[in-house]
């Protein structure tokens, strides 16, 4: 099965990091990526929520607003799409994402249409 692992974390943490800590943070993600290279289909980090635009279509009119869909302390900052045998394996991999140590990982099974 495929699962999307959504990484939620405090953006300020990354923004306020020293160069050295940033380096360590990146290394941790690289190590994770290597360990689970066989399971990860794709994955990305996202630019901070202040770069986000939210779009709605209402009665034929497009409404765009500045900022993310929901303003929360811990924001979506990245994701991995993985292949796992079952939810337990997906949970185990989610627990290894460095962001799990400070933020939270939401595990979402991908819908399949037959």
């Amino acid at each position, binding site marked *: 099965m495929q699962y999307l692992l959504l990484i939620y974390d405090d953006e300020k943490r990354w923004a306020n990091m020293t160069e050295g800590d940033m380096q360590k943070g990146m290394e941790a993600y690289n190590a994770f990526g290597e360990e689970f290279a066989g399971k990860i289909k794709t994955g990305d980090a996202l630019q901070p929520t202040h770069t986000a635009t939210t779009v709605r279509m209402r009665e034929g009119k497009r409404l765009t607003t500045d900022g993310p869909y929901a303003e929360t302390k811990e924001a979506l900052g990245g994701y991995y799409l993985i292949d*796992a*045998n079952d*939810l*337990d394996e997906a949970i185990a991999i989610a627990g290894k994402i460095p962001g799990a140590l400070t933020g939270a990982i939401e*595990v979402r*099974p991908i819908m399949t249409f037959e």
Partner: protein
Amino acid sequence: MTAIEDVFRSEWGRLLAALIHLLGDFDVAEEALQEAFAAAVTEWAGEVPRNPRAWLYGTARHKAIDRLRRRARFAEKQAEIAYLAPSMTSDNMEDADESGVPDERLRLIFTCCHPSLAEDAQVALTLRTLCGLSTEEIARAFLVPTATMAQRLVRAKAKIRGAGIPYRVPPASELPERLSVVMAVIYLVFNEGYAAASGAALVRHDLCAEAIRLARVLRALMPLAQLNAQLDALLALMLLHDARRLTRVDDNGEMVLLADQQRSRWDRAEIDEGRKLLHGSLRRSRPGTYALEAAIAAVHADALIAADTDWKQIAAIYERLYALHPTPIVALNHAVAVSMSDGPGAALPLVDALSDSLADYHLWHATRADVLRRLGRVEEAADSYRHAYELSGNEAERRFLMRRVRELARGT
């Protein structure tokens, strides 16, 4: 109980667990097993075959194959049958006893109590699948409409399927965490039956019996000794409490306090078994919360009359329990024990210290009322009893509290 009901009660969970493993689908397995029991009602004609488990398993298996064939023909998905067929004819089933039905209940209980399911869903699913309680029965036991409970079960099964919750016993590294979830579910079922917040008493006691039965099954099937110590403590705790069930409510349905219960009617067999399990558990590992709670129940069971109760020891155990599990309820129970060992004067400050956290809890008011009554502060006591009365949802308890208020008014 008819012979078939008997078989249903003892075999449902085991048969369903095996069928889910075979068929890979909760709903197909459940429907097939229901059809097999329906067939048994007509075909057994009151006479149970020599091996009812094997009969029911074989019948349900055929019903399921028929169903899947129809579905496969309909959807032209022959692959499904091809996939199922070999395992259905092979004889090399693991763990199978003379009935030919492997015992897969551990897989089932760990799947039902998966931490990614909500607690109320874990409880409902466990009672439905392992205990065979109907949706109506579970709904009645938990005081929710049948439709709500039905939806809860449908959603839980959909999540197992949709999210890919595996049907297996977790690996050893995850077992402690996962077992504690299973034990929490079992204890919740027991407490729902024992506390009887309201509702029909008969259904309620069934819940206690089911929880004890689940713990026994789990205990029989779990391999690891270290974990069994906690499980033994949980089973001991439930048995030691269940032993009092006949004496907790009198013939008129009135609640009877522990001090006033007719101790000769406590179930000695359950007490002996509980005590033995508890001692075994304490020998093997440091006591956890279940063991400490069981130890308190055992101290009560040791006293043949209420006046002989060793309240000093109970207060000491509550202190240890508080160290592991620092909740206001444990602190309140500790205060009650202190009121018995050192007197109401020593307990009142302990009770009052909990006023913020337990202001909405009827037993806090009832405890405070009792302490004040014993200190001779009658009017304050009556006030507290009234608060407790207003907050309690249990009819027997409300009648008891009203009785206390009237006794205080009469000065008895």
